[in-house]
């Protein structure tokens, strides 16, 4: 998993940004976040929006090393805070007939 570390304040993001929301600086370096993340919070969502096929849908925020966080779908029926997850890339939903892709999590 690739991360983007702000060269000025050190905040690490899981996606590319032009400007750091924490310090406002614009220079980032790519860092390796490893494969493993830990689930810090989750929800089991029973009312899903149009365009999502899975119901109920487990959504969570996981933390990689250096505190880099990523929100996404968690492919498990038994989510638990602290569980180890791996991020994978693939189809997340459809929007106006088009597939939207991105990262989701699977239990390690």
């Amino acid at each position, binding site marked *: 998993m690739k991360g983007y570390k702000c060269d000025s304040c050190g905040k690490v993001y899981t*996606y590319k940004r032009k400007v750091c929301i924490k310090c406002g600086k614009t220079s980032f370096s790519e860092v390796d976040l490893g494969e493993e993340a830990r689930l810090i919070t989750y*929800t089991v969502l029973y009312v899903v929006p149009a365009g*999502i096929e899975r119901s109920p849908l487990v*959504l969570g925020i996981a933390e990689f090393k250096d505190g880099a966080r990523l*929100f996404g779908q968690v492919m498990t029926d038994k989510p638990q*805070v602290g569980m180890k997850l791996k991020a994978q890339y693939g189809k997340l939903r459809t929007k106006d007939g088009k597939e939207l892709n*991105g990262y989701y999590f699977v239990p390690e």
Partner: protein
Amino acid sequence: MSRKVAIIGARMTKFGNLIDKTLMDLLVEPSEILLDEYKIERKNVSSVYVSNLLGEISSRQTAVATALADYLGITDVAAERIENGPASGASAIRYAYMDIASGNSDLVLVAGAEKMRTAPTEVVTDLVSMMSHPEVEYPSGATMPSLGALFARLYMQKYDVKPEHLAMVAVKNHSNAMKNPYAQLKKEITVEQLLGPGSESFNPYVAEPLRLYDMSPMTDGGAALIMADLDTALSYTKNPVIIEGIGESTDALALQDREDPTELKAVRLSAEKAYRMAGIKPEDVNVAEIHDAFTVLEIAISEEIGFFKRGEGKLAVERGTTKIDGEKPINASGGLKARGHPLGATGLAQATEIVWQLQGLAEQRQVRNANIGFTVNMGGFGSNAVSIVYRRY
């Protein structure tokens, strides 16, 4: 030198499932009542601001402020629609405030409305979720309740907040709504019903750990204010409400990017700005309407706006401090939870309740000795907030 700005009067429609009312009905009705009641000549209105989010889809309508001016027979005015997510209503008040304080306008109509019950739930849920981060939240299926639930789990864990605390907020706000003829949910509930045996069917999970009765409902409704500089306001009423402070703030758009995702920083900073501008402290506030889109938010926001220390908002609920007859009444109207939450109208409905409280018009919900009022209207899931301080004239 900016001028003092006042609210002459406030009105709202009944909130609920208003299948027979159009978006225009919901904007026109409270506006017309105000214009008639205060005998305001159309030609004296110089701006019309309308807060609304979903007009394109709910009603196949844009440029709703111009439409409202037309329907009301108001011509040659500035007419603009304001969109700031669920905080659109308070943002519209802010625009009117700036317009008047600067001397640009003397008399301004602010109206807000939403039709949320026309499209199917999954469609409205999707529309509302469009205010989430377009790259890192929306594609995964983020909805406002899901983001609220992620926040709730972290916040409840950190401060040992129990489902009972959330249920107590729902019970209080439903009880307050029983005294509010304009409220959507007219149903007394008990903590036992919400959490006791058999509660899974009465109060099912929507987004664990949040259940149905932790959520504000889908609502149709409208509300309106007439605002003016103080001198003009006094020519129409002896009982205006002064806007003493307005503050707006933002936070990282995505919940994952916030320094501490158990904090609602935009809420805190907006309140601090409003207090500073008004020259008051949180302890000076006598009556408040705060953005309880989810029950957990009433507790968390009550701490962020300085009413209680961090982690002690739950104690205030336990002790009844936030009831209508408590020391710090919160959401006497029933709040978003039970009055209803028609997105574009919510900020104006909050203001309406405070105006009525400060004008002594809140009837069975009247808070005694209400002199200073406060509202906070939150946008996104905590990415934007607008706080307002009001004073009885």
